[in-house]
């Protein structure tokens, strides 16, 4: 390799210009979100004030925020929230670590698919409520039981989406991987996983959503006496609608926050998917 063809130097002032990426787009997003949520909560408040729905079921947004504020101020919310959040993140991590490889495997191997599919789908559509007695029987009340419920809720959506993703992988890229010496695990890690990343992320997001519900159910029925589920249960028992809605809002914030975090992660991991949207 001696002589070489030269492309025009890329640093050539003629062809590369520095541009300012306006921060406006970001402000715009934040702005839209703020307006959006403001409108939402305003409508909520108005509907509640109009008493279209009984306030026992549908409190005012302001009362909900007050309950939220007081709950944080008097320390009733934070310990429960932190318990739930910690548990949930551990459970989600376990789910991802199990769900992604198994899902990819099921996508790639017809036999694995054939064997595991019935169980995976059965488990995905099994209400976790039905599992609780069995789980308590086997695992007792320890935190491990609550974790198990979270994992059982989150792992299958992840698995199932990863499985679907593998079938879309461009075969020529797998060939390129093989030609350039990648072993089977390397193919999974370096070709299939990056290619299916949108599926994986979407699966994890669904796992987040289902896992949160699972977490709540575990806390509601698992008798831990802590976590957001406990708050929800107590608020329900005490007809404390503002607190009940405050708990649900916390749940929603957790969900949206985690999903946003996943999106951020995806953008980090895949800056190449800078597809212009219509």
């Amino acid at each position, binding site marked *: 390799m001696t002589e070489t063809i030269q492309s025009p130097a890329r640093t050539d002032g003629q062809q590369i210009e520095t541009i300012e990426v306006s921060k406006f787009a970001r402000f715009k997003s934040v702005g839209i979100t703020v307006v959006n949520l403001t409108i939402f909560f305003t409508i909520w408040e108005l509907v509640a004030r109009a008493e279209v729905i009984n306030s026992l079921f549908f409190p005012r947004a302001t009362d909900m925020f007050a309950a939220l504020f007081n709950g944080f101020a008097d320390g009733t919310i934070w310990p429960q929230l932190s318990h739930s959040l910690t548990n949930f993140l551990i459970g989600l991590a376990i789910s991802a670590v199990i769900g992604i490889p198994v899902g990819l495997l099921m996508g790639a191997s017809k036999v694995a698919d054939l064997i595991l599919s019935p169980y995976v789908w059965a488990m995905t559509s099994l209400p976790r409520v039905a599992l*609780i*007695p069995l789980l308590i029987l086997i*695992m007792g009340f320890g935190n491990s039981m609550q974790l198990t419920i979270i994992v059982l809720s989150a792992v299958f959506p992840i698995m199932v989406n990863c499985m679907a993703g593998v079938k879309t992988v461009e075969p020529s890229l797998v060939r390129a991987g093989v030609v350039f010496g990648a072993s089977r695990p390397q193919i999974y890690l370096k070709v299939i996983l990056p290619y299916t990343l949108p599926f994986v992320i979407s699966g994890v997001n669904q796992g987040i959503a289902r896992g949160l519900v699972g977490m709540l159910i575990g806390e509601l*029925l698992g*008798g*831990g*006496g802590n976590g957001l589920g406990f708050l929800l249960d107590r608020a329900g*028992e*005490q*007809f404390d609608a503002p607190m009940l809605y405050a708990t649900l809002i916390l749940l929603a914030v957790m969900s949206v926050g985690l999903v946003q975090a996943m999106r951020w992660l995806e953008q980090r991991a895949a800056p190449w998917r800078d597809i212009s949207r219509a």
Partner: protein
Amino acid sequence: ACGGGGGGGGAAAPNAANKSAPASAEDIDATIDTSKVKHTLVVGVDNPYYLFHEDILVAQEKGYFKEVGIDNVEIKTIEDPLPALIGGSLDMALYDSDTTIAAAKKSNTGVRFLSVYLGGEANILGVGKGINTAADLKGKTITGGQFNSRNDAILRELLVKNGVTPDTDVKIVSTGGQSNERLQSVIAGVVDGASLQLRHREVLEKAGGKFLFEETRRVPQNGWAANKLLTESPETVTAFLTATLKARQFITNQANKDAVLALMVQKGFDVPPEFADAYSAENAPDYHVADGGFDPADMDKFIQDQIGFKSVPEGTDWRAYTYLEPLWRAQKILGLPFRPALGNV
């Protein structure tokens, strides 16, 4: 009393003891050997309402547990404590008597019913605004919970008793969930009436409704049960019942209402005025059974009823799944009369 099939090895001891039930008061051991008592206990209750927690919390506060050698009792609030009781993660459970007995029979384990907690059952039809008489019910929609449940059935009885014919005069719908959800439905007008709990009176009345029909029956509806603890440390069971019954004596003394409620609030329970108002009814000595005992005839009828609703299997003899010696010992220690009477079971 002849026991059914008391299968498992663990079940043999208490069952045998029950069969050779002590015939006289002298056979009842009125002392607790605290060296044999477990220091910490995990017990389950199925309801976050303070009524189901107060015995333990009062006993703890007043040092009754210490007296019998128990250092600490952890309460788990769990909708269905039976799996945990069978699985061994709970030492004792407070749950529906009929369900406990049914589970004991069906599971073939050492689960035994020990003592009654609530001996009364409020059968109440709460109705929304504008309904004041039985006649007003005509054409209205009411619910007693899930069809074929006990609640549903006794509500129908209540209607009949008050001259209302179910399904022709009123429309009955099946709903899930607990009584507080039914209360919400009444207040919101989703249904016109529903069977409710005593403690819902104030909330309902504030919303313009009322208790239209109301009766209280003597039904040993729920109570304590234990499983492995009965073989591992029967002494602990006696100790637990002794301490909590002592607390119950205190609680059912209406003079202590404020002290009890203050304690419960201090323990983190929310006790709004309408709950406090229900105190005298809910903590009446024959409702929140002061001595933990029951009348075997009541139990006979209750279980028979429940067999009718299929929530207890056909041919169940509750006596085979009930173990009363700890209760009797506790009653003797506390100087209470034996109930059920010795020999009656």
